């Protein structure tokens, strides 16, 4: 697929994907590299504080979740509201396999991630076959999420029910709180971002943009919409599951509340909304801002929820595409003003 060809749908795209597709390779991956460097430097700024390091690690975790969700929702308009469940299967799956069957952690993670990828692909396939609208996909996945939570609560012997699961084996380096785990999650995030950028520049990304713009038109012009949605569904959910598994091992302990809708899906949605749905760095910006705001507001306890509500309202009544694309648009506008001939 010639990378210079820009299909009609992409021309109207609000995000930077088109620029990314046409730019030479080093320019396209520059944002990822820059982000990697910036985030790698953070611990140097933070210093020795365990609290802030943990906070920063949490931000990385959510940013990684958000990249996965970005692929699923931001690129192919599939509203999967079961991110928490996917992450939970990653964590609980690995944990259960390790606790009960002594399966070594890397293998356990691999198995759980594959299972979740299967679910993700299945949801995508079903939604295309049954021609489900966006809300229906949301409701079906939401239901799945609730089923999962109830399964966790019900199967007490394996999952520990309400009290949660404790990992009985050595979780490995990711369980070492502090710098080691920070850099592990940072590596994961950078890998995700690199993959995301690569996808944007590939024929897969081209197909995503086409079907996001007009699914029927894409289908009619020969794009196998089902196949690409399944790719997005599997890829994004696998990412979320991987992060979920690692996060579970980082904490060493997790319960159903760790992975419920309000703890995972909603924050990720708000982060992405703020950072820019469909944009490369949106997840990072969104996660950073959200984590800082959350930490600052912690003394407000329950009132935080109200604040997030207000943020959501302001975001969606105001900036329709999020803050990051607005900055991109601004940059493009400025560039155009400077060189009127181009």
């Amino acid at each position, binding site marked *: 697929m010639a990378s210079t060809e820009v299909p009609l749908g992409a021309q109207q795209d609000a995000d930077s994907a088109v620029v990314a597709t046409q730019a030479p390779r080093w320019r396209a991956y520059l944002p990822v590299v820059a982000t990697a460097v910036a985030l790698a430097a953070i611990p140097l700024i933070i210093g020795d504080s365990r609290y802030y390091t943990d906070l920063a690690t949490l931000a990385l975790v959510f940013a990684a979740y958000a990249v996965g969700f970005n692929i699923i929702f931001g690129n192919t308009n599939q*509203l999967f509201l079961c991110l928490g469940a996917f992450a939970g299967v990653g964590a609980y799956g690995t944990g259960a396999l390790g606790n009960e069957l002594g399966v070594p952690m890397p293998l356990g993670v691999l198995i759980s991630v594959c299972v979740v990828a299967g679910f993700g692909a299945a949801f995508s396939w*079903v939604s295309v076959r*049954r*021609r*489900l*609208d*966006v*809300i*229906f996909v*949301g*409701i*079906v996945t*939401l*239901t*799945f999420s*609730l*089923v999962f939570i*109830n*399964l966790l*609560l*019900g199967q007490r012997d394996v999952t520990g029910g309400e009290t949660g699961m404790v990992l009985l084996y050595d979780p490995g380096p990711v369980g070492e709180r502090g710098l080691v785990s920070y850099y592990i999650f940072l590596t994961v995030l950078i890998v995700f971002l690199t993959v995301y950028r690569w996808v944007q520049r590939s024929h897969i990304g081209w197909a995503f943009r086409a079907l996001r713009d007009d699914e029927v038109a894409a289908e009619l012009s020969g794009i196998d919409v089902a196949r690409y949605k399944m790719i997005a569904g599997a890829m994004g959910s696998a990412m979320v599951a991987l992060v979920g598994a690692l996060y579970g091992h980082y904490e060493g302990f997790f319960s159903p509340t760790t992975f419920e809708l*309000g703890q995972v899906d*909603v924050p990720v*949605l708000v982060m992405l*909304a703020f950072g820019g749905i469909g944009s490369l760095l949106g997840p990072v910006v969104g996660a950073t801002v959200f984590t800082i705001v959350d930490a600052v507001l912690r003394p*407000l*306890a*329950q*009132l*935080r*929820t*109200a*604040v*997030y*509500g*207000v*943020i*959501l*309202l302001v975001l*969606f*009544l105001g900036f329709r595409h999020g803050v990051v694309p607005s900055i991109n648009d601004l940059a493009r506008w400025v560039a155009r003003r400077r060189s009127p001939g181009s």
Partner: protein
Amino acid sequence: MAVVLDGVAYGLQLALLAVGLTMIYGLGGVLNLAHGQFAVVTAIAAALLMDSGLPTLPAVIVGVLTGAVLALILDASIMRPVYRLQGENRVLLSLLITLGVAFVIDGLLIYNYPFTALNLNVAGPAINLLGVPMRRGSLAASLLALVALGVLIVFLRYTRRGKAVRSIIEDEEGAQLCGINPSRIRTAVFALSGGLAGVAAVAEGMTSSLSATDGLNLTILALIVTVVGGLGSVAGALLAGLLLGIVYSLATFYIGAYVTFIILLVTAMATILVRPSGLMGRGA
């Protein structure tokens, strides 16, 4: 048999909760995720009034009106930009905006009234219905739900305003051509849905208790019943409510709490996948 009756009782409450949500979707193509919050606001308002000495009946009535007024304000203000969009965009934006509103109300209520709960205990021994002893609270709740639903159905089927509401769901352009103002009716029905959610809260208060934390759960419950019954169909909400209520009751009796929820959810999922338009929806 007792189990089935219990299921019907619960089902009526579910239907009452869902019917407002489904009407708003049918009329305006918007999904209101703050629906459960209207119920909770009613409950908290009524509980607070009762605590300060007001007798039960006026407190409850004021509570329900509070829910309705809140819904009215919401529709007339924040929802305006949503109505400017069409189709799928409108639904998505309505989801996000109402979610924001739900969070705001949820956060404010839980923060300010964490321990306030609505408890409407109906005292007295169990009453025999068809040879089955039923708790008074359960019976009272079912009666309330039945009356409310009955009034709604009479309104929709036999009054001019009610028919105007149905006509907008049937064909909005046709309704406009008859001189019917869709946006004014939409606002009125939005307020009505808030009131109905409030009545559902009262019913819930009779069988158990309702507090500020229940908001989002109620919304999810209403959403599932609505979707299974068919978005926009009042009859569907009724049918789905009863169906899911009976399934819930049977499952809880024969199996257990967690598995029951799973069965309920799987039933809902299966219905959506097999017939996305719902039990009474139009077209697949």
